[in-house]
């Protein structure tokens, strides 16, 4: 992301140094205002277009996913901003054992105390790498934090009122995958795959400014991806025939694979995915567990964010390995616990 965005900007600078920058500056508030005015003016034709039953049901589900997920997103963003600003990163380096093989499970368990969705954990993991935490431990943390933190587990318990064992299964399976990926990185990983993130976020700012800056950025960034996820979920709900899902749900192997792929494609925030999983009631609990384990670890938006933070060479190796491992571990955990 960084490369594709900064390169054209530089050429712009060279050709036309000051005015482009100024122009871009004025652009977005103006653009936003114009967009809102146009939307308000066109409101009745748009409403008419949305009056068709398919569109109406799409819009309802879309808004419902947003209204339901935003409070959880805001909660996670607040907590992660507080931790990112008020807990010094050096604390994490000190708290972890010296030996990398031991630091991995500790980092995995530490994921439980950093609440936030996966969008929040990518920058935190980047910060950990910068502050000298061994990459294996930081990656374990990256994978475990969005899946096993209290907010996500509470949401899972709320979404599956009849199956409390789902919470345990999700905790165990996610922790196992995260630690296994950490150890795998220790054995096979090479540092040159990682592009070290160079920019420090919160230096030279007051605490309040850093806190609200983090809240603003995370809400805008993760919120944007949440919109993508909500649109995908709404499309699936409003358009995909139920028979299609039922065919997949009837075959146990196909069900697991279908929901694993669905988790990657839907890219739902880990704080909200339990509710979507609960609604996929025609699938087996093991298949839905796979959905819950895969989703927070690897999906389209996470892949984009990982590639942006750690580099493409890293993401291309890390993502498929995580996906395969998450599916296998979920099935095994499902067989034992569910």
């Amino acid at each position: 992301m960084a490369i594709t965005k900064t390169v054209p900007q530089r050429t712009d600078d060279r050709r036309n140094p000051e005015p482009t920058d100024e122009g871009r500056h004025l652009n977005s508030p103006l653009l936003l205002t114009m967009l809102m005015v146009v939307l308000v003016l066109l409101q009745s034709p748009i409403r008419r277009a949305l009056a068709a039953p398919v569109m109406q049901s799409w819009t309802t589900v879309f808004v419902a996913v947003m209204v339901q997920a935003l409070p959880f997103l805001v909660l996670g963003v607040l907590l992660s901003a507080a931790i990112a600003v008020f807990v010094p990163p050096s604390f994490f380096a000190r708290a972890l054992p010296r030996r990398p093989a031991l630091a991995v499970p500790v980092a995995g368990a530490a994921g439980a105390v950093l609440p936030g969705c996966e969008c929040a954990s990518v920058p935190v993991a980047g910060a950990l790498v910068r502050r000298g935490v061994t990459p294996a431990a930081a990656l374990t943390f990256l994978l475990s934090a969005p899946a096993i933190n209290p907010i996500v587990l509470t949401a899972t318990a709320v979404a599956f009122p009849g199956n409390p064992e789902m919470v345990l299964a999700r905790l165990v399976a996610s922790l196992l995958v995260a630690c296994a990926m950490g150890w795998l990185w220790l054995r096979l990983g090479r540092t040159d795959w990682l592009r070290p993130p160079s920019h420090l976020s919160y230096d030279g700012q007051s605490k309040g400014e850093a806190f609200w800056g983090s809240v603003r950025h995370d809400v805008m960034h993760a919120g944007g991806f949440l919109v993508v996820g909500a649109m995908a979920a709404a499309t699936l709900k409003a358009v995909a025939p139920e028979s299609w899902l039922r065919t997949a749900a009837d075959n146990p192997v196909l069900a697991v694979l279908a929901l694993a792929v669905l988790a990657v494609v839907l890219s739902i925030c880990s704080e909200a995915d339990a509710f979507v999983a609960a609604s996929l009631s025609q699938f087996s609990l093991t298949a839905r567990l796979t959905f819950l384990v895969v989703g927070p670890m690897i999906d389209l938006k996470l892949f984009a964010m990982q590639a942006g933070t750690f580099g493409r060479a890293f993401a291309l190796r890390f993502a498929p390995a995580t996906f395969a491992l998450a599916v296998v571990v979920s099935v095994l955990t499902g067989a034992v616990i569910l």
Partner: protein
Amino acid sequence: MNRQAQAAVLFLLGASLLHAATTDLYLRYVKQGLRPLVLVSGAVLIAAALATVWYERKRARAQKQHEADEGSDKDSGKDSGKDSGKDSGNSSDKDSSKNSGKDAHAHAHREPRISWLLVLPLFALILVAPPALGSYSATRTGTALQEPLAYPSLPAADPLRLSVVDYAGRAVYDHGRTLHDRRVQLTGFLALDRDGTPYLVRMALNCCAADAQPVKVALTGRIPPVLQPDTWLQITGTYTPRRAKDPVNGGPIPFIEVTEAKPVTEPTDPYDESWNN
């Protein structure tokens, strides 16, 4: 989108959440229990918007001061990466990591473009405010009737008010034992099957409309002559052992012998939330 525009979006988003939660609008989309969370998050979003504007103004002032101190040498920030990092200040964005000092000076700081998508839910919530799920979803999804855990004895009222879910559960899984010789009153919306069978439907939800599933009761007897899908009806009728299978998923659909049907306004909470408890 720069920070001022972001502040505007945050503010509008927070305001629309507050609006939805302070009116009954939110009940079309999520369960009642989420109301406090929606209210709090709306307030936090507004606070974040105000904080962004405040710090942005402070930063602009500091920037002016800084430029006045350093003179108009625009390239001063270019020589050291460290300085430019500090100049760009609260850029929590990785994209700016490669910006030159000049960019940082002009704070041409690229925020994620994906943020623009947040305008969509704003628009949908403020201007469109889509209705609760209705007959379209109901006819596409199979009945989600589950066997009740128990059949508590019913009060002696006449007519007896029951929820659609309660009636269907008793009729299908208890063979209507608690319903014989009773006039029952159900409220739900009308949905027409592909072959024209009228159903009285209530959507049951666990958390939000994305997981809402219909529970259906088929109508027989004195059905109103004009059937308009999505009209809310209050049906008075009696139990009948007749059953049907849902064409979508083969689930059981009980019938009710209608004696009277009158249109009513949509209830405050259009969904059945009894599965939450």
